[in-house]
């Protein structure tokens, strides 16, 4: 049966070639969507990471008060991480940033005391949660030690970014589903057409007393061969593409280098495409042969 499938594949020459090529396109689309999703996700993640809010304390705030605020913040489910910068740290950072500016250094020296307050940078697990964190800080008993929270100033940007991220996720998913669906439909139809050309053959096989499973076997094997070859060809096409686009994409999106990703996950990607290809080939063959194997009236 396997041998017959291979022989049929070989003798059907052009039809087999066309089917494999169509399937390559499908797998290519599926693979490209997979990679672009990867890029989009990592780009969005790095964007999300850049969002945080800073809590500025008054100069009078005591270390213990700030410490208890830290503990309270850590207890919040929405908070991912917090970073405490003490007054001294803030001054050191400020000096370092402006070490080239003699005027500022001089003024600080003349001032004699530390004009800067302590700050806490808060990162939420989800950008949507900044509003509630900020509300918690403003309404709690810590109001007296807090000078200002920069959430209000950044609110518009954060909100817009949040909705943008959500929209790109939804759009990406939508495009993926639609394109994958179209590609699968095209492959399915190509295989159906290929089997349609064999419908006389199938009727002859039935006449000489071949059982349905016996007739179907070689077609299913052919479907598997289509899937396997298409997977191999697609992986070969992705190689130079990943070499060429990998560094460019990682610079642009700030995600991982695609080529490295391709190399380290070679087996996983190959298996993913193989499963898609073989399942698509076999199911298409199954549905297509079913029509001609039904008893006539």
């Amino acid at each position, binding site marked *: 049966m396997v041998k017959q499938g291979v022989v049929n594949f070989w003798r059907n020459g052009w039809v087999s070639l066309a089917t494999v090529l169509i399937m390559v396109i499908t797998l290519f689309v599926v693979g490209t969507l997979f990679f672009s999703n990867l890029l989009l996700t990592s780009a969005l993640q790095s964007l999300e990471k850049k969002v945080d809010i800073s809590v500025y304390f008054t100069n009078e705030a005591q270390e213990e008060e700030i410490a208890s605020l830290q503990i309270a913040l850590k207890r919040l489910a929405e908070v991912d991480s917090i970073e405490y910068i003490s007054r001294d740290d803030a001054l050191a950072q400020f000096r370092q940033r402006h070490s080239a500016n003699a005027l500022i250094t001089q003024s600080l020296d003349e001032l004699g005391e530390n004009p800067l307050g302590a700050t806490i940078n808060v990162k939420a697990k989800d950008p949507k949660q900044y509003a509630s964190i900020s509300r918690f800080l403003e309404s709690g008993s810590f109001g007296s030690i807090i000078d200002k929270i920069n959430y209000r100033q950044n609110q518009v940007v954060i909100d817009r970014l949040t909705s943008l991220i959500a929209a790109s996720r939804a759009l990406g998913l939508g495009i993926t589903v639609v394109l994958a669906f179209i590609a699968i439909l095209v492959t399915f139809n190509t295989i159906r057409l290929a089997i349609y050309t064999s419908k*006389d053959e199938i009727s*002859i096989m039935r*006449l000489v*007393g*071949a*059982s*349905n499973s016996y007739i179907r076997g070689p077609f299913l094997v052919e479907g598997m061969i289509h899937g396997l070859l298409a997977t191999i060809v697609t992986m070969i096409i992705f190689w130079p593409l990943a070499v060429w686009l990998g560094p460019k994409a990682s610079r642009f999106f700030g995600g991982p280098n695609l080529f490295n990703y391709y190399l380290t996950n070679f087996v996983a990607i190959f298996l993913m495409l193989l499963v898609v290809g073989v399942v698509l080939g076999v199911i298409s063959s199954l549905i297509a042969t079913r029509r001609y194997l039904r008893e006539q*009236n």
Partner: protein
Amino acid sequence: MKYRANALYISSFVIMIYYDHVSKIYTDTSTALEDVSLTIEPQEFVSLVGQSGAGKSTLLKLLLAEERPSSGKVFFESLDVHKLSNGDLPKVRRRLGAVFQDYKLLPTKTAYENIAFAMEAAGKTEDEIQKDVPQVLELVGLSDKAWHFPSELSGGELQRVAIARAIVNRPDVILADEPTGNLDPINTWEIIGLLDKINELGTTVILATHDKDVINSLKRRVVTLEKGKIVRDEKRGRYVL
């Protein structure tokens, strides 16, 4: 004579094939068969004659369960062929060898492979195939063309391959639907001669044809169909229309 085991007995006759009041109506204006009853005994050579559209082919297709009767039943031995399961139907078809006007060979397989395919489908072993296929090719006189594809063979050769395929599983019945329709007189006689020989070896043959000379020379049972009805059934018939 293995078929006697489950053959249908009516009075003292052994019946192999029995059409029981069969009608086949395609549409209101197109009736292929109308209340046809026909019995065929083992080892008979029956010719079905009639003009195109008289219902000869439909009669054969009904026996092969390629088509379903609008009413009535078709029995092969004791089996109602239209009540068989998807699993049993192929088994019955292996006992009915079919030959057609358009040969119905698989174009992507060589003559040898076409014949071997029918054996593979019947679940024969590779040893049996390698032994039997050359034998039937020899019988139909095509040993030297075994590895040719159908596109490389003449009409007469194609029909002989088709006959070889039909008999290779040693069926109980050969159904031949206008097997000489596309052939010249010399090839026609060769094919009819082959069918005659197969019948002498003990296989029932049902031959649908409108070739007057063939019928008249055979001098066997002739069933004449006209507009879907049997109008004549003679033991040693001649072609009369």
